């Protein structure tokens, strides 16, 4: 910290989202970051699993991603979807089978960096948020140069890179604990 730094305020600590978030956080088309089946729209989905490998049916996943050309969406309206404005932000609740799903656009590379979705996880039983990334597959060179991915063991790196399905969609599980535990981030 430099000498001219002003006095920092102590941050407000986080708390669990609890079991009854749905009526407070749900909004229409929350998981439709891109209009379903519109040109360039893909599905990003997977399961959220606990330390016993069981699905977590009460998790909230949020994504924020660049547009297909790598630009950062600055448009308003993520809560009032108009069907064409791309805001980059979406929210999904896991199903009883622990599944989450978004319609979105695949982010392109921004300034030559490996493209990824920024992801936040909330859940009942999770005392505070978790940050992670879901990298888009198929950018081997950029991923080798990525400061985070390059510092990870192969097994850890695999927890951050989505899988391409035969239909061209993206599949990615999030494991909060245990075998193949997702790498979570601190900034």
């Amino acid at each position, binding site marked *: 910290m430099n000498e001219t730094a002003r006095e920092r305020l*102590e941050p407000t600590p*986080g708390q669990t989202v609890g079991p009854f978030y749905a009526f407070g956080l749900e909004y229409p088309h929350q998981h439709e970051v891109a209009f379903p089946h519109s040109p360039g729209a893909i599905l990003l989905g997977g399961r959220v699993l606990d330390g016993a490998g069981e699905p977590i049916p009460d998790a909230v996943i949020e994504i924020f991603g660049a547009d297909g050309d790598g630009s950062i969406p600055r448009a308003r309206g993520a809560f009032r979807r108009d069907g064409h404005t791309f805001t980059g932000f979406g929210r999904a609740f896991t199903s009883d089978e622990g599944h989450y799903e978004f319609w979105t656009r695949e982010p392109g590379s921004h300034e030559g960096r490996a493209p990824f979705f920024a992801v936040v996880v909330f859940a009942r039983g999770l005392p505070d948020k978790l940050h992670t990334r879901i990298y888009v597959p198929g950018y081997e060179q950029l991923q080798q140069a990525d400061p985070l991915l390059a510092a990870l063991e192969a097994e850890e790196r695999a927890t951050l890179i989505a899988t391409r399905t035969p239909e061209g969609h993206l599949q990615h599980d999030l494991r909060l604990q245990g075998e193949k535990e997702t790498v979570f981030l601190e900034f």
Partner: protein
Amino acid sequence: MSTSTPAAAPESLLAAPDQASQRQISDEIAAIHARTPADAARTLHDFAPYRSSVLRHPTKNPRLVDPETIELYSPAFGQRDVAAIESDLTIQHAGEPLGERITVRGRLLDSWGKPIANQLIEVWQANSAGRYIHQRDQHPAPLDPHFTGAGRVITDEAGRYLFTTIKPGPYPWRNHVNAWRPAHIHFSVFGNGFTQRLVTQMYFPSDPLLPLDPIINTIPRQKDRERLIGAYAHDLSVPEISMGYEWDIVVDGPDATWFETEEH
């Protein structure tokens, strides 16, 4: 449990088969707080007194990374996203909700004390009897036909927000025998960067349930726990109408402006 069976419904997971007493839970909380180092996280993910966290907390430390591109920005919200009426939880139905009408006011700030304007705050809560409208809330307290308990607001140019609502009741849950959540309002907050995303709970002063509650005690330091307690503000109380509480929210984490204004 076999992985082929469907996931259990959340309400059944709320009941632990071998429920501890409050004394056991309080002893566990005290032991963890006593052994937590001073530089630990503000909220502990690994906190067994909150029973449903046992299989849901990561076992590895988070990776420290420099945030990049999209992480340094936040989704952009505006008045288009939220109607003004959404900040008053007492006028969403034909009649007046039961309970103690309150206003909660405060500012959304970054850790340099700069107000965060035009950002989204969402709230949700139980009614005055401690009942959530959520369909899986099985607590046999009455629903209030005039109260849903969800609201939203966009902060103004000075980072200010204000909600009108009713004071939520304490809420029973099945973490342990005779477990009651202190009265609380859930808050979901967006800052200047996605790194600053915050979901938390605001509590009320002098609540005797606070020291007993495993959830607020996932925060090991007393000073940090106190940051979640709204202050009664008599000046904000309206004669013969409502009681006032004040609560500022400080989000933490780098954003795009942080790199422009500070040297590192």
